[in-house]
C-alpha cells in the first residue's frame, strides 16, 4: 500500500468516525483496549494494554487516531492498563465465539467467492445461535459481522463471566460436537414384562425436546422421510449403500419405518435392531451437519482482544456491524456493512489485482489499471491491497 492510498484511507476513516457514534461495550473502563495504527511497512504492531482512561475521550480518540483496527478485551480487570496479565487483576470475561470462513470445513478455500464464504459462515452462525439460545439458554447475546471473513458472538450473561479455560473448552466442544458419543444420545429404559421373543428388551430413545439428542433424532427422521417418498427399490438401494446393511436389514428398516413411524417420531429407536444400527450410523453424521465449527482458541482465551462493534475493519473498509436478532435473516454483510460515509461518491483508483468483486448487492468485473469506481468499492479494493489510490482529475 503506497503513501497516497494510506493517507486517503486514514482520512476517510476519520470522516467515518466523525459521523458515527460508536457505542462502548458494558464496563468499558474495566477493559483493556488495543488498536493498530496505519503505518508503512509490514511490521504492524498492536498498541495494547491501554485502559480507556489512557485513550482520553473515546470519540475523540477514534477521530484523532482513526486506527486501522480497534479491539477491546473480553476480560474485565481491576487495572486494565497494567502491562502484564498478572497485574491486571482479572474479574471475569465475556464468552465470545468466532466463526471464520477460513476455518469452516464447508468452505472451499480458493474456490468459493467472498460472498459464498460469508453465506456459508452465516449458516454456521445460525447453528451456533441455536446452541447458545436453545441449549445453553443464554439471554445476553450480541451478534456482530466481523468486517472480514466471519461473525462474532459476545455472550455476557452473568453466569459465564467466571468460567475458566477448562469450562470454556467444554462449551467449545459442545457446540462443535467434539467427542460426542452415540451412547450419550440415547437413553435406555427397561421395558416391563416379557412381551414376545421379538420384542426388544430395552427401549432406547432419543430425547426429542432438545440438545444433541434432538438434533440426531431430527436427522434420522429427515432420512426416513426421504426414504418413505422414494420408490421401494430406490429406498432399499439407498439403505444398502451403508456398510453393514444388506438386503434383510434394509427391508426390515423400511418395514419398521412404515409400520412404526409414530414410535420413531416419538424418539424410540429400538423398533428393530436394524433401525437402531441405522440410527447409530446416522448419528455419526450429525456433528458435521449441525456442529458449529468455531475457532477454539478465541473462545477459551479469557484475555482475548476482539474487534469493537461499529468500528471499521482496516482490511476491508467494511464496518464491524452489530446485527439485531430479528434482522439476522435478512442481513447481507456485503450490503449492510458498507459504511454510509463511503456511499454516493466515485473515486479514481489503479487496480493491481483485478477480478470479480461482489459488493453492495451487485457484482463487478474489475479490470486492471486506472479507473473511476464507486467509492465503497474503491475503499474495499484498496483496503484489501488490490488497488492503489490514483490522483483525482
Amino acid at each position, binding site marked *: 500500500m503506497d503513501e497516497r492510498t494510506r493517507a486517503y484511507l486514514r482520512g476517510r476513516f476519520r470522516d467515518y468516525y466523525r459521523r458515527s457514534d460508536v457505542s462502548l461495550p458494558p464496563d468499558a473502563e474495566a477493559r483493556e483496549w488495543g488498536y493498530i495504527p496505519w503505518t508503512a511497512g509490514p511490521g504492524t504492531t498492536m498498541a495494547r494494554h491501554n485502559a480507556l482512561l489512557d485513550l482520553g475521550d473515546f470519540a475523540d480518540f477514534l477521530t484523532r487516531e482513526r486506527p486501522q483496527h480497534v479491539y477491546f478485551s473480553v476480560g474485565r480487570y481491576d487495572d486494565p492498563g497494567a502491562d502484564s496479565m498478572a497485574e491486571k487483576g482479572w474479574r471475569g470475561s465475556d464468552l465470545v465465539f468466532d466463526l471464520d470462513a477460513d476455518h469452516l470445513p464447508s468452505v472451499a478455500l480458493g474456490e468459493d467467492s467472498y460472498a459464498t464464504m460469508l453465506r456459508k459462515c452465516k449458516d454456521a452462525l445460525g447453528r451456533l445461535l441455536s446452541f447458545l439460545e436453545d441449549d445453553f*439458554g443464554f439471554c445476553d447475546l450480541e451478534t456482530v459481522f466481523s468486517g472480514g471473513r466471519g461473525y462474532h458472538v459476545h455472550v455476557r450473561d452473568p453466569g459465564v463471566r467466571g468460567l475458566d479455560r477448562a469450562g470454556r473448552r467444554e462449551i467449545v*466442544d459442545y457446540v462443535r460436537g467434539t467427542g460426542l458419543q452415540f451412547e450419550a444420545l440415547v437413553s435406555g*429404559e427397561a421395558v416391563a414384562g416379557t412381551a414376545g421373543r421379538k420384542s426388544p428388551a430395552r427401549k432406547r430413545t432419543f*430425547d426429542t425436546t432438545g*440438545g444433541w439428542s434432538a438434533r440426531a433424532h431430527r436427522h434420522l427422521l429427515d432420512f426416513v422421510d426421504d426414504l418413505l417418498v422414494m420408490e421401494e427399490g430406490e429406498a432399499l438401494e439407498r439403505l444398502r449403500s451403508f456398510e453393514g446393511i444388506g438386503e434383510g436389514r434394509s427391508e426390515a428398516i423400511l418395514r419398521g419405518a412404515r409400520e412404526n413411524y409414530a414410535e420413531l417420531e416419538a424418539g424410540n429407536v429400538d423398533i428393530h435392531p436394524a433401525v437402531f444400527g441405522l440410527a447409530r450410523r446416522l448419528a455419526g453424521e450429525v456433528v458435521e451437519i449441525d456442529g458449529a465449527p468455531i475457532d477454539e482458541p478465541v473462545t477459551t482465551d479469557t484475555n482475548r482482544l476482539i474487534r469493537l462493534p461499529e468500528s471499521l475493519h482496516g482490511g476491508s473498509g467494511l464496518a464491524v456491524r452489530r446485527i439485531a436478532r430479528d434482522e439476522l435473516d435478512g442481513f447481507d454483510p456485503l450490503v449492510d456493512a458498507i459504511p454510509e460515509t463511503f456511499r454516493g461518491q466515485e473515486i479514481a483508483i489503479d487496480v493491481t489485482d483485478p477480478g470479480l468483486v461482489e459488493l453492495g448487492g451487485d457484482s463487478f468485473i474489475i479490470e486492471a489499471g486506472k479507473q473511476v469506481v464507486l467509492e465503497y468499492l474503491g475503499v474495499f479494493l484498496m483496503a484489501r491491497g488490490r488497488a492503489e489510490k490514483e490522483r483525482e482529475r
Partner: protein
Amino acid sequence: MATGLRPLHARYPYFERSREAVREADVSLVAAARDEAVAERALARVETVLTEGTVGEPERGTRTELLSYPIARVLVSLVDQPVLVHRYARAEAEAARERFVADLGRRELKSAPGNRLTLEGLLEEFDLDGAVRGTGRAETSEADTERGDGYEMGVSSYLSLAADRRGEEWRLVNRRLAKGWVALSREDVLALLGEAVRQRVASGLPLSVPAEIEAPLEEAVATIEERLAETNLIRDIDTVVPELFPPCMKYLLDQVQKGEHLEHHSRFAITAFLSNIGMETDDIVELYMVNPGFGEEITRYQTDHIRGVSSPTEYSTPACATMQSYGDCVNMDDRCERISHPMGYYEDALEDADDADLTDWRARESEAEAKTEAEAGE
C-alpha cells in the same frame, strides 16, 4: 448462643456451620495445635492420604475430630507441596461424597432434627440451591436413574464443578442440555457436591502459618515430608520426561525429529504440549533440532507464537477429543482410557512413575549434573 459441637460438624468440618461452631467454641488454633489428640488425628488425616489415598478413620470424640481438620490444613500448608494439597483435597472430597450417600439415605443422623443432613441443606451450603432443581421425576423409578434423570443443574455451575473431572460421562457434549439446564442423576449431584468440597478444602491453601502454631507441629510436618519423599510424588508437571509423554505426543515428537512434514494442527499440538509442560522456546527448538533439515527460524517463530510470547494468547494443548478429530490420536494405551486430555495423561504418568532413573530431559546433558538436579526435585 453457642450451639455446641455436634457429630455432624465433625463429619463435615468444612461446612460453614461447622466453622461457625469452632469459632463459637472459642478454641484458638494454637491451643488446637498443642492438643496432642488433635494433632495426632490431624497427622493421620494427611498421612493416610499418602499411604492409602483416604483421610483415615474418624476419631470418636467430636471435638478432636472436628479440630483435626483445621490443623490438617495447617500441616498441608507447612509442607507446602502442590501435589499434597491436590491429593489431600481429593481425599477429603471422596470421604465427603461417601458420607453424603450414607447420611442422605439414613432417616435420621442421631437424634436432634438440626442434625439431619438433607440434600436441600447441602445445596444451600454450597450456594447451589438456585442452581439445582428436581425435574419432578426425581427418584420415581430406576429408569429415571438410568437415564441420568431426576435433577438438573444450571450449566455455569455444572461447568465450574465438572470441567476438571476426568471421564467422558462428565463432558458437557455427552450430557443432555436444554435451556441452560444439564440433566443429572442423584449420584451425579452428589459427586458434584464432592467436587464442591474439594474446591472448598483446597481454597486458600497453602495458608500462611504463624510461628506459634508451627512450633508444636514440627514433628508431624517432618513425618509427612518423609512419607512424601518415600512416595515419590514430588515431580511436578514441569518435568520433561519424554518416555512418559502420551502416545500421541511421543509419535509427533518422533516425526518432528525425523524431519517429517507435519500438518499445521499436528505441529501446533506438539508445540503447545511442550510449552504447556513448561519448556521454553530454546528448549523446544533444541529438542526438535535432532534433525538436520529443520528450520530453526520458523520453529522459533511458531513456538513463540504458541507460547504467547509474540501473541496475546498462550495456547493450550488440544483435548483428546480434538486430537482424535484431527487424526492426531495414535497408539492409544490403557492410560488413555482413563483421561480425556494429553496433559492429564502426562500428569498421571508422572504421578505413577516409579522414579529413580527418570531424569528431566534438560538435565541429561551431563550425567553427573542430571543426578543432582533430579534429586533436588527440579
